[in-house]
Structures are given as C-alpha cells and as structure tokens.
C-alpha cells in the first residue's frame, strides 16, 4: 500500500510518470484544518472588531482557499503553470474589484447630494 502512495504510482502505466496520488493523511488533515478554520471564522465574527472583522474573515477564507488549492487541487505537487493561472486570474479579479471600488467611493458624494436634493423636492 505504501509503495503505491509514493509520488510515482507503481500501478499507473508508463505514460503516467508524473502522477501524484494524495495520501489519506494529507486529505484528512486538510479537511480537519478546514473545519477548524470554519469554527474560528464563526467565533471571530461574533467579536466586534470593527472594520477588522471583514479583514479577519477574508484572511481566514484566503487561508482555507490556499489549503483547498494546494492539497485537494494538487497545486502543491504539480504544474507551476496552474498556479500562475489561478493566481493570475485572482489578481485580475482583485484589480477589477479594487479599481471599481476606488472609483465609486470617490464619486459617491455626488450620488448622495442628488438623493438629498430629490428628497427635498418631494
């Protein structure tokens, strides 16, 4: 059993030279960590940290996401280019969020002023 779980699986045909089979320990360990982090994020959210609540929640979610990507999605074992795809796309998504939030928050007073003017009018 242990031989089959090494990074090159003996049972795989020759073409599968780079196949990695994740061990039960790694799978179970990961899911245990994910469960624990879920509990932590719930507990932390019950404490009022002000703006830090969002930061903490997103931070924990990111750690969980990295765990899933690294172990369940095999990123730890293979394909540096897959990491580039995942991280690259996440970065572009973040840039979209970042730029749009940056801009909308800056022009928001103009929306509020108009809303106030309309309320006055009625």
């Amino acid at each position, binding site marked *: 059993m242990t031989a089959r779980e090494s990074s090159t699986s003996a049972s795989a045909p020759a073409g599968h030279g780079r196949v990695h089979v994740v061990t039960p320990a790694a799978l179970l360990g990961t899911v245990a960590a994910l469960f624990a982090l879920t509990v932590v994020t719930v507990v932390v959210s019950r404490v009022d940290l002000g703006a830090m609540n969002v930061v903490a929640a997103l931070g924990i979610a990111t750690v969980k996401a990295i765990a899933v990507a690294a172990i369940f999605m095999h990123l730890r074992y293979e394909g540096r280019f897959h990491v580039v795809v995942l991280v690259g796309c996440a970065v572009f998504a973040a840039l979209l969020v970042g730029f749009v939030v940056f801009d909308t928050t800056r*022009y928001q007073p*103009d*929306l509020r*002023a*108009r*809303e106030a*003017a309309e309320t006055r009018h009625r």
Partner: protein
Amino acid sequence: MTRPPLEPLQALIAATPGFMPARATSAAAGVDQIFAFIFWVSAFFLALIVAITVLFVVRYRRRPGRMEPEPTADHDTRLELLWTFIPLALVFAMFAMSTRAYFRMTSPEASTASPLKVSVTGKRWSWWFDHPNGKGAPELHLVKDRPTELVLASTDVIHSLYVPEFRLKQDAVPGRFTRMFFTPTLAGTFPVLCAEYCGTDHSRMAAQVVVHADQASFDAWARQGVDAGASLVEVGRRVFTQRGCAACHSLDGTRRVGPSVKGIWGHEVNLVDGSTVKVDEDYVRESILKPGARVVAGFPNVMPPAALEERDLQGIVAYIQSMGETP
C-alpha cells in the same frame, strides 16, 4: 504655463481654416497646446513610418539582379531599446502636460470672484438651465471672465453637455450630480450639444450658450422675460419653446416622437388601450402632469412629467387651442 515653445505649432494648427473651433474658455488654450504637441509628434512618426516603408519597398524590391536579401542582424537590442525609450519619454511628456491641464479643467478656480453657479438639467431631448437668480431658461447665459460652475443632472438617461468652443464635455448622469468648472474668455454665442447617445432625437438635443461681455449685460438679460401682461397664448408659446416641448411635439403637423400639437384641439384621438379621448383642457393638463396616464396610440410612452406652474399650464392649454381646432 509653458506656452512659448508650442505657440508656433499651435498657431499653425489654428491657422488651418475650419480645423478647430474658436477658443472660448480658460481651458481651451491648454487643451490646444497639448493637442498641438501630440499632433506634431504623431505627424512626425507617421511620416517616418510611411517614408521608411516607401523607401525600403523601392530600394529592396525583389527583382532580377536582386533576388536574395542581404544578410543583416536578426535583432539589435540597443536599437530596440532606443525605440522603446524614445516613445516612452514622449508619452511621459504627454501625460505630464495633460494631467496638469486636466486638474485645472476639473477643479474650481482659486479666484476671488464668486463663481456663477448654474444648474443644468438634461432630459430627452432638451437642456434646461437654472441660473442663480432663479431664472430658468433653455439657453445657458454666462459672463465673460467670470469663473463658472455648472452642476449637471439628468431626469431620464445619460446625456453629455458639450460645447466645442469650450473644449469641455461632461456627462449628465441620472441619479447623481456631475460638475464642470471653467471661465469663459470670449463673448459670443456658441452651440451646446449632447454628446452621449440618448435616443431618437439625440442629434437635435441642442441649445445655445450666450457669453455676455460683462456682468451688466447678463443682469439685464436676467431681469427681463417675466411676462406680466402677456396673453395666455404668449405665455404658452414661451413655455412651449423654453421647455423644449417642440423637440417631440411639432407645430406643423410633422410626426416626431410625440403627436404634433397642430390641429388636435377638440379632436378625438385613439389611445393605446383602444379607447378614445377628446383633446380638451383636462386631457392636455393630464398629459403634461401625468404623461403616461393616457398615451395616444402609435406613440411611445417616454415623456417625462413636467411640474408646471398653474399660469404656465393655462398658457399651454391656450396655446394648443390657438394652434387650430379640427374643422
């Protein structure tokens, strides 16, 4: 301002008849200067590209006696870095110049004179300008050399206030205000256009801006026009033109977005729901205050409600009546 070095280039562009509109604001000179800079840089590079292309084609065309290319390097990093960094330096210059000018164009002037603040409302397909003394007009009136702030709003869709002579443009967005800051520097009358597509008569959504030579002239304009003693029909005619009703409702029977007002008084019209109604005072009033209530068949339900004063309402009714009844 770094005006002198570009002045001759700018003058050359400006000298081309019909190339550029007059310069009528504080912003215009700065914009045109940067335009001139980019124009000549571009003209140089375009000429260079075309000249090299033509030259190489003529000299190196494959022809009897010259069937094979001459060996040359397949890359030259120094040369390639040269044509990386020269354009880079040029766009940096453009960016730096333009950003300075842009901030001047989009922020209030640090001037002691109190700004003239005008509220602009865009609606399909007309402009309305509320001047500081409470005077509303379908024309924008400004004073030469007096700093101006326009606060733009829209009641329906996005419009864009554009005066080519001012070199300025700003969208009017429903649900919010947008602002323009500038100082007119040339007295005269210029067209106000809509530059953001807004439907059927987008191209006819035009008005005028009148830049008065001095404050006194502006004040004189602002005082006049309160039509005491005018007949109801005259009041109606004024309101009808000023509020831009004619953009959709023609006076001569032409079919536009809405029904023409010519000869409809007393007429039975078919409605979208299949019923009919007689055009009388009640119906005209309702159609102004609640346009969507009873829409004439064959026309879209797009008219925005207009909260008119009682006298103006009476005026419109009288005006439409004066446009002739059905024989």
